[in-house]
C-alpha cells in the first residue's frame, strides 16, 4: 500500500467520531424539520371545531412534539459546541 493511501486511511479513522457526529446532526435536523411540520399540522388541527376530549388529546400531542423538538435543538447545540470545541483544541495544538 502506498504511503499516501495509508495516511488517508489513518486520517479517515481518526476523523470517524467527527463524521458520525456530523451524520447525527444532519439526521436530527431532518427529524426536527419533520417534527416542525407535524407541530404546524397539530396547531391547525387545534383551530378546528373539536370537542373537549379531542382538544386535550391534540394539545397533549402538541406538547410532546414541542418537547421533542426542544430536546433535538439542545442536542444540535451540544453537537455544535463539541464540534467547535474540538476545532479550537486542534487549532491550539
Amino acid at each position: 500500500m502506498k504511503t499516501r493511501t495509508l495516511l488517508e486511511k489513518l486520517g479517515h479513522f481518526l476523523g470517524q467520531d467527527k463524521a458520525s457526529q456530523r451524520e447525527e446532526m444532519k439526521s436530527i435536523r431532518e427529524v426536527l424539520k419533520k417534527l416542525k411540520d407535524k407541530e404546524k399540522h397539530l396547531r391547525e388541527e387545534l383551530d378546528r371545531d373539536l370537542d373537549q376530549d379531542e382538544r386535550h388529546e391534540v394539545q397533549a400531542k402538541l406538547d410532546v412534539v414541542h418537547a421533542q423538538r426542544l430536546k433535538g435543538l439542545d442536542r444540535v447545540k451540544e453537537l455544535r459546541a463539541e464540534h467547535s470545541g474540538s476545532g479550537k483544541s486542534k487549532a491550539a495544538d
Partner: protein
Amino acid sequence: MQRLWLAAIFLLLGYTFWISPDLSEIAAGIALFMFGMRSLETGFKTFTGGPLENALRRSTSRLWKAIGFGIATTTVMQSSTLISLLTISFVSAEMITLAGGIGIIMGANLGTTTGAWLIAGFGLRVDIAAYAMPMLVFGVILLFNQGRTLKGLGYLLLGLAFLFLGIHFMKEGFEPFQARFDLAAYSVPGITGVLLFTLLGMAATFVMQSSHATLLLIIAALATGQVSYENALALAIGANLGTTITAVIGGWTAAVGGRRLAAAHVLFNLLTAAAAILLIQQMAWTVDRVADLVGIAEDDFLLKLALFHTLFNLLGVVMLAPFVGVMERLLTRHITFTRKPAEQPRFLYPEALKTPATAVSAVRNEVGHLYDNAYGLIALGIGLRRSVIDSRQSLTEAVRGTRRLIALDLDEVYETKIKSLHSAIVAFIGEVQQRELTEEWTQQLNQLQEASHDIVEAVKATKHLRKNLTRHGMSPDPAIRERYDALRIQIAKLLREIQVLRTEEPGAVTSLSLDPLRLALQTEHRRNMESINQMIRSRRLAPYVATSIINDAGYAFGVGENLIEASRALLISPEQTERIAGERLALDEQDLARIANAARSTVYEPNHRDLTP
C-alpha cells in the same frame, strides 16, 4: 347453491298452494307462528344484557334453582331454543358453570311443554284470533316509539299476536282435511311406527326451527283426526329431539364450555327420548291415569298429548338430575378444546438466515405478524371486534353500547396464535445469533425479541383483565360499569392509535409518535386511579369490587405499556443514524411527568418556547 334451493322451495310451495288452498292456509299459519317466535325473540333480546343476565347468574348456584329458572324463563318466553342459545353463550363466557347450564337446559325442556298446554287447552277452543287483533295494534304503536324498552314490549306483543294468528290459521287449514282424507289410515303400528313418527317430528322441528310449531301441527292434526294418538306421542318425542339441532349449531361455534353444554343438551334429550320410546306403553298408561286424576276426559287427546309432553320431559329430568355431576365430569374430560394446529410463522424461512439483514427483516415481519394476532385477540378480550377499532366509529359509544362480551377461549387462542409464534421467533433469533453478527444487528435482534416478549406480556395482562371483565364488566351497577368501560376505552384507543401509526412509514418521527401515547396512557391511568379512590371514599364502590378494579387498572396499564414498547421496535427506522436521532429526541419518564403536571396545573395555557433555530 343456496339460491337454487330457495328457488326449488319457492316452486314446490307455489305448486302446493296452487293445488291445495287449504295447505296454503296451514303454511301461512306456520309462517305467522314462526314470525311470531322471531318477534318474541327480538323482544326478549332487548331486555337481555341487564336483568335477565343477572337473574341467570344468581339462579344457577344450585341445581334445583337452575331447573326452576329454566322452567320459569322458558314458560314466560315460550322459546326453549332462545334460552338454550343464551345459556350456551353464558357457559362459553364462563359466567355460569356447566352444571348450572345443564340445569337450565333441563328446566327449559320442561318449561317448553307449557306451550303444548297453551295450544291444546286454550288455542283450539277459544277464538284466539280475536285476541290477536288488539295485540297487533298495540304492538305496532309501541314499535313506533324511540325508547328501547317500549320497542321491546312492542315486539313481544306482536310476537304473541302472530303466534295466536298462526294457531288460528293452522286450525282453519286442517279442518277441511278432516272430511276429505284420513291420514290416520296411514299410521304405522308398533315400534316401527313410533320410530318413524319420532323421525318425522324431529325433521319437522328442524325445518321449522320450532318445537312449538311442530306441536301445534301435531295437535291440530290430532284434533282433526289426521294422526292417531300413539303416532302423535311419537311425533312429540321427535319434536323434543329436533330442538337440540339448533342448540348443536349454536354450540358448534361456541367456546369449549358452550360445546360441552350443547353436548349435554343432546345427551339429555336423546336419553329422555330413548326412555320415552322404550316406555311408550307405560307412559301412555300413566297419562291415562293422571288424566283421570286431574279430570281430563278420556277422549280429550289434545290435553292428553300436552300431559304426555310434560310427563316424558319430567321423566327425563327425574332420571338424569341425580347424574348432572357425573355428566359434567364426563363432558369436561371428553370435550376438551380440540387444539387447533398452532399458527405457523409466515416469514421465518431457512433462506432468511443467509444474511443478517434478511434475518432481521424476517424477524421484524414475524413480530409484526405476532402483533397482528395479539391485536385481534386483545380487541376481542375487551369485547370489541377488530373491525370496530379499525373503523372510524366512536369507541366510547361502541364500549358503552356493549351488552355482552364476545365468547372467547383466550387460553386456546393464546396457545395457538401467540405462544407458538413467540417460540418460533425466539428459536429463529437463537439460530441467527449463532452466526457472526455486528453489534448493530445483535442489538436489533435483541430489541425484536424484547418486542415479541412485550406482546406476549400484553396478551397475558389481557387474560387477567378478561377474568374480571366477564364478571363485572357488564355490571348493572353504573359505578362498576363506568370503571370497566373506562379501562376498555383506554385499551381500544391505544390499539387504534398504534394501528394508524403502523400504516405509516417506519422512521424516527413515527416511533417518536409513540411518546404522546405513553403520555396519554399515564394520564389516563392516573385519572382512573383517582376516580376509583374517589368512588371508594364516597362509598359508590364496595371495597371487594374496588380492589378488583384497581388490579384490572394495573393490567390495562400493563397491556398499554407493553403494546407501546413492542410497537417501538416495529416502527423504528431501519437506518442507524435516523434511529439514533429518534432515540435522542424520545422523551423519558421525567419529560413526560413534566408535561403531565403542566397540563394538570393549568386549564390549558401552553407556554411553548420559540424554537426557531
